[in-house]
């Protein structure tokens, strides 16, 4: 009965949540049949719901018919009301029997127009208008008829048989009807009652425990334990005293499970939605004479970020630095292999009373980047590597996956880590971005504004193709600056983003990752025109600008006036 009420409430909410369709009124009809194992009764609920606007012109009407599998009508009823018409039908239930409820849904027109008919009927020997009709005699009398108003044209619908629920639309046009009751259609629902349950075994006790967790092996009956969302929970049931029979697992919540072991005594369960779910284990004796059961609750949760520390080094331009395994002069964050550019250390934790298989849950890093690098070289002028549409300052567009997912797939608590038996996982990785300054050709200037987001992801299954993944932490960082070549000194002047090394923390997060497209650009051939670079009409191919740059750093090109001016010693 509770299930029935729940279904009714659910459908009612569903009805009011669905937006009204434009240019058509709608009426909702549904049927629900339920079984109450306490009273051993089958209940049927038939409902017609008229929406607020429609209720001005129509009342709701429903008829409910409850049949058994032999076609015997067990109960029926009808109801008419302004907004909701509902009829309950009820019948005693037999085990393993199909029961079907049919609900006929109607609208009842509320308004009518009276039409006085002044035509004579010469065949039926009486007329409708005594005064106007020459055939009329003393038996004739004036007569009239009522025409029912169907402003939304429900009578033009297509009545039929539907499943448990259906929306009936009034497509129009407005019309007058001779009938007051407008048939919309029929919905139906059915169920098969369960086989009879054996009585409880008074002398048997069922226990259930987990293979993992701080109290592995102990009886969890009546208790609540945390589990990690998506990860395997390995459970075992036992019967005391030992008795031949079979275990049956009843698991609430969205899940996957695979019972196994002797008489299904073990079960591996993975919940895929968060929240509290009930596990019930029922033991049925081999002779079917009686049964015993127990239950406990699990609370499925996503682990949380424990700590997330980021240590970032300074940007530097180094003559013949070979930083990050590049060749020659380099502009880099840190100078790989020592010091590294930026280091990430993250920890995730789940409740200590968890009972999931620890090694089934992992964390990993995934990094996305919005690149922007702009260089100026003598032969090619100004070029960029970026996917941004708005140029240097546009940090909203151009996001792409940096490397691969996972960012670093090394096992053993490096790039990817399993949770430990105390439900803690720790990962660490690094990045040392850099840019060459004189390979494959000498840069006159370089501007870097690379924006990054390094996510900590909880996941279950294959790191590259996880069954389930959730963001639990995020650190935003960037590196860059401006480097200008000083030819006379064969050196570089540098304006770095980070003149000092810094330490900061990533933050807990549960929003999905920022949307990104494809992979970051990584090839030398990806240097191309900058998005914000609009060559002036006076120098469309950039020849004059390039000639100005070749004169050295004491000359400055003004793209507005297309002039090359001497700016002297800086």
């Amino acid at each position: 009965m509770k299930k029935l009420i729940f279904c009714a409430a659910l459908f009612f909410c569903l009805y009011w949540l669905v937006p009204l369709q434009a240019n058509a009124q709608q009426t909702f009809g549904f049927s629900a049949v339920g079984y109450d194992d306490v009273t051993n009764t089958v209940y049927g609920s038939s409902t017609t719901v008229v929406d607020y606007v429609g209720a001005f012109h129509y009342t709701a009407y429903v008829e409910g018919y409850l049949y058994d599998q032999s076609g015997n009508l067990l109960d029926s009823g009808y109801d008419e009301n302004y907004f909701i018409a509902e009829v309950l039908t009820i019948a005693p239930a037999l085990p393993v029997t199909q029961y079907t409820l049919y609900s006929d849904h109607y609208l009842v027109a509320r308004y009518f127009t009276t039409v006085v008919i002044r035509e004579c009927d010469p065949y039926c020997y009486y007329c409708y208008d005594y005064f106007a009709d020459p055939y009329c005699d003393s038996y004739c009398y004036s007569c009239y008829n009522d025409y029912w108003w169907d402003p939304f044209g429900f009578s033009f619908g297509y009545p039929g048989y539907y499943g448990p629920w259906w929306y009936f639309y009034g497509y129009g046009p407005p019309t007058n009807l001779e009938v007051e009751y407008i048939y919309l259609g029929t919905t139906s629902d059915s169920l098969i009652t369960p086989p009879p349950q054996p009585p409880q075994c008074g002398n048997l006790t069922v226990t259930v425990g987990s293979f993992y967790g701080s109290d592995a092996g102990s009886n969890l009956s009546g208790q609540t334990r945390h589990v990690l969302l998506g990860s395997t929970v390995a459970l075992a049931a036992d019967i005391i005293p030992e008795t031949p029979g079979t275990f049956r697992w009843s698991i609430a919540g969205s899940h996957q499970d695979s019972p196994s072991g002797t008489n299904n005594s073990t079960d591996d369960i993975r919940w895929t939605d968060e929240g509290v779910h009930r596990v019930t284990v029922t033991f049925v004796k081999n002779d079917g004479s009686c049964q015993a059961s127990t239950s406990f609750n699990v609370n499925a949760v996503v682990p949380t970020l424990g700590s997330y520390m980021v240590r970032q080094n300074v940007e530097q331009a180094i003559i013949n630095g070979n930083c990050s395994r590049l060749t020659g002069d380099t502009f880099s964050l840190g100078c790989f292999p020592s010091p590294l550019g930026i280091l990430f250390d993250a920890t995730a934790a789940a409740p200590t009373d968890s009972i999931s298989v620890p090694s089934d849950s992992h964390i990993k890093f995934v990094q996305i980047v919005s690149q922007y690098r702009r260089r100026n070289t003598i032969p090619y002028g100004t070029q960029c590597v970026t996917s941004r549409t708005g140029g240097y300052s546009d940090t909203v567009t151009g996001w792409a996956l940096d490397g691969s997912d996972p960012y670093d797939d090394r096992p053993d608590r490096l790039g990817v880590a399993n949770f430990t038996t105390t439900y803690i996982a720790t990962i660490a990785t690094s990045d040392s971005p850099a840019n060459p300054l004189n390979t494959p050709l000498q840069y006159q200037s370089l501007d870097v504004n690379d924006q990054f987001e390094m996510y900590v992801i909880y996941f279950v299954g294959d790191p590259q193709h996880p069954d389930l993944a959730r963001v639990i932490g995020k650190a935003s960082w960037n590196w860059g600056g401006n480097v200008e070549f000083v030819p006379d000194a064969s050196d570089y002047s540098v304006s770095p983003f980070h003149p000092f090394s810094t330490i900061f923390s990533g933050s807990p997060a549960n929003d999905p990752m920022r949307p990104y497209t494809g992979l970051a650009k990584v090839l030398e051939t990806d240097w191309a025109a900058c998005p914000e670079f609009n060559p002036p009409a006076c120098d469309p191919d950039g020849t004059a600008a390039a000639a100005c740059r070749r004169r050295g750093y004491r000359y400055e090109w003004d793209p507005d006036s297309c002039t090359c001016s001497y700016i002297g010693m800086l």
Partner: protein
Amino acid sequence: MRSRVILMIAILLLCSTWARTQKPVTNPPQKVNDRSVEQLDRLTEVSIMPVGYSRRGGSYALQQEFRTGEPIRVALIITNRSTEILVMDKGDRFFHYRPRLFKDGREVEYLEGVKKSIDSKDKYGPNGLSPVIAVTLEPNKQTTVEYVDLAKWYGPLEAGHYELTLGHRFHHKGPHVQSNTTTFDVSP
């Protein structure tokens, strides 16, 4: 007067202490060549094995039988044969790796986009646009460096018997250190 002097000294001390904790913008302009690059070529051994994800162990494990469409990964394992800690980098797969895959004796071609990428990397070397992830190689130990996804190089593999080797290049103009040959089968 005396208190003002003490205050000034205190401020100077504080400033100097703060300055010491900060690293300067400019490092020494010249850097000594990193000898560990050549050591990586000489003192490491590269090996590979086909793997699949094992839910039971919570990690990748040796697997030599695959179904078509199933992800085929190759564990790249590097052994440091020296007595010193070595540091290598990873993250630029089209620079570092050169797999060679043979199906029933015939070499399988790279995807078109891969050819373009490796041509660029062969010509220009690394350019700092890919992640540079530091990997520490402990002395006389094997380190699993990466799980290379063959689909990114060859696309989905057809059914057949495969042989694979992988060359690993640690630095620009360095040799491709060759791995062992490993085999696996893909069945429909």
